[in-house]
């Protein structure tokens, strides 16, 4: 029975993905489509790294290395299959293309898994920071090696890779990665993994084969990174060794830490968030809006520690109303511009829609108003700070104008600092986004 339901769910997911795959390019402009693909790849990377770093408590800083292994292995496979076997001007498409790419993804997973095993077994036997050091070295070695392998382009990069990656494949892997990680973590094995994170010696004493579990998590995580590499290669149609350096790993680590070590929901949402954020930061007008929205979000997610003071109720309510208005004015343009990217919305809803969005956000903002204390805390703690920072940044932007890319990273870093200061445990900590989380979020101020 359960099998049957699972099968039906799987078929439904595949169908939904295929439909979206066909329709998304028509609904959304190519730029947005590209962001969606990138977000998907980042979700795979973040969730799989969270399995290693968050749930099992190891510290891998070589995720990009495994991505490179999978990416290059699969690209070599599809490229040479095309050039040596099929030989046409274009790589085989249609059903053959799907079959080839499926095989390529398996090759990516397998090669990265084998590499993960080879790196993991010796270093995971030992406790402590060995893994960090070894994976760091591994990542650099892989890049150096690829630089010298001529059949995959060496330091010039591997170009002319066939185009296979689309929405369907990326989000199929996303669904698979998330489900697999979730099931693993919730199973008896997952308990063992978390026990290793919580206290390795105690886990050992409980009869848990700690080395085996660490290796298991590491191999699975690496395999997923390999698949992400394959998806990226067959989307960009080229791979370059320098794209898989240490910095790429750090990018993924940031997503994991930001989302919360040990929260799948957190990894998924921050992967999307970071991807979109980095794009939005290309447009100076939005920088201010993003600041406000973000800081509000962290403030709402923080658990209040200071109770409300009765005597100051009136100023506090005023403050809350002000904050709400600001939120509305900050968020509405973002949502609006995002929706305008949807052709259908632009054609039918643009004029009325704008007003609706304002009302909608206002309504959404009033809901957590029940938690007056949080809002108050937000204002005192962050508001002035954010305002000043935004002004400084916007002014600074004038001087930085010819170096826009660098400037974008400065803002990004500033945002990271603010987020981490507010939520050192990550946006989600170890929590998942369940019904209970929502209830807790909107629970009226108690006591």
């Amino acid at each position: 029975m359960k099998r049957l339901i699972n099968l039906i769910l799987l078929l439904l997911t595949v169908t939904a993905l295929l439909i979206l795959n066909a329709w998304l390019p028509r609904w959304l402009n190519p730029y947005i489509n590209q962001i969606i693909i990138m977000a998907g790849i980042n979700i795979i990377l973040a969730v799989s790294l969270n399995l290693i770093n968050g749930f099992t408590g190891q510290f891998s800083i070589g995720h990009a290395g495994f991505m490179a292994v999978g990416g290059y292995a699969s690209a070599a496979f599809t490229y040479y299959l095309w050039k040596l076997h099929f030989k046409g001007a274009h790589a085989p498409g249609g059903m053959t293309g799907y079959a080839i790419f499926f095989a390529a993804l398996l090759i990516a997973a397998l090669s990265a898994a084998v590499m993960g095993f080879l790196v993991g077994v010796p270093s995971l036997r030992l406790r402590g920071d060995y893994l960090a050091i070894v994976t760091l070295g591994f990542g650099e070695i892989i890049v150096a090696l690829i630089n010298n392998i001529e059949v995959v382009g060496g330091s010039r990069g591997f170009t002319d890779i066939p185009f296979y990656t689309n929405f369907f494949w990326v989000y199929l892997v996303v669904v698979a990665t998330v489900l697999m990680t979730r099931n693993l973590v919730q199973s008896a094995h997952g308990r063992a993994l978390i026990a290793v994170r919580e206290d390795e010696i105690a886990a050992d004493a409980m009869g848990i084969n700690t080395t085996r579990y660490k290796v298991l998590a590491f191999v699975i995580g690496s395999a997923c990174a390999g698949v992400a590499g394959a998806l990226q290669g067959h989307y960009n149609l080229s791979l370059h060794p320098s794209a898989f350096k240490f910095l790429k790993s750090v990018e993924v680590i940031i997503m994991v830490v930001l989302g919360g070590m040990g929260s799948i929901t957190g990894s998924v949402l921050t992967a999307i968030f970071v991807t979109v954020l980095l794009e939005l930061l290309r447009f100076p007008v939005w920088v201010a809006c993003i600041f406000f929205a973000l800081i509000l979000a962290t403030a709402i997610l923080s658990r209040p520690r200071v109770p409300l003071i009765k005597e100051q109720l009136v100023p506090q309510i005023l403050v809350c109303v002000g904050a709400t208005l600001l939120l509305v004015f900050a968020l509405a343009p973002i949502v609006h511009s995002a929706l305008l990217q949807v052709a259908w919305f632009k054609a039918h809803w643009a004029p009325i829609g704008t007003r609706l969005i304002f009302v909608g956000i206002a309504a959404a903002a009033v809901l957590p108003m029940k938690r007056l204390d949080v809002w108050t805390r937000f204002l005192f703690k962050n508001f002035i700070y954010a305002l000043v920072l935004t002004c400084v940044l916007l002014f600074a932007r004038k001087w930085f104008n010819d170096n826009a890319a660098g400037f974008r990273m400065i803002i990004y870093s500033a945002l990271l600092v603010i987020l981490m200061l507010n939520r050192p445990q990550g946006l989600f900590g170890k929590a998942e986004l369940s019904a209970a989380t929502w209830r807790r979020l909107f629970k009226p101020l108690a006591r």
Partner: protein
Amino acid sequence: MLEISRLDVYYGVIRALHSVSLHVGKGEIVTLIGANGAGKSTTLRTVSGLLRPLAGEILFEGEDITDMPPHRRVALGIVQVPEGRRVFPQMSVGENLDLGAYARKDKAGIKQDLERVFSLFPILAERRKQAAGTLSGGQQQMLAIGRALMARPRLLLMDEPSLGLAPLIVKDIFHVIAEIRKQGVTVLLVEQNAHMALSIADRGYVLETGRVTLSGPAKELMANEEVKKAYLGG
């Protein structure tokens, strides 16, 4: 039941155990006493497999387990309550106990043992949903012992269960240890609190800088002048 002979254990170049031999008979409580740094924890860790000896051998019911990894020793019934409790802080009391039974498959037996643990430590039943890290020190020690019992040990290795606990709770814990032995579990107990340990143990060993210097029935050790002077406060 447990037979240790001529065990040498090193931490890097530091020699922690010099040819330590001891044995534990079935159904006994045997205690290891000694000053700080004498090598008591080291001995226990070697028995549970967290450390490997450089020389010597460990026999458990006649089987040589010297090179066996820790998780297989747990499957044989050698279970350690580690020094300093080491509960899984972010997991609930119930989850901690479940993990104790990690290596077991017999659902009925696990349930029965859970009842047994709850009857030994009623407070754990009460706090079942609470995060283990938020328990008091004494409760954490009870949880650590309960968790080890969930593995249905045949030989229970306990490292300083009284560490940092109020005298009244120490008494409770020792009472439970005696109770556990009555239920048929053999206990190897490491203690700084020599008086308490010797009062419930059958036999004892005195460890000094990695060597066994004295051994014998607990009563004799308690009467021994040197032991009195060094470990029983005159």
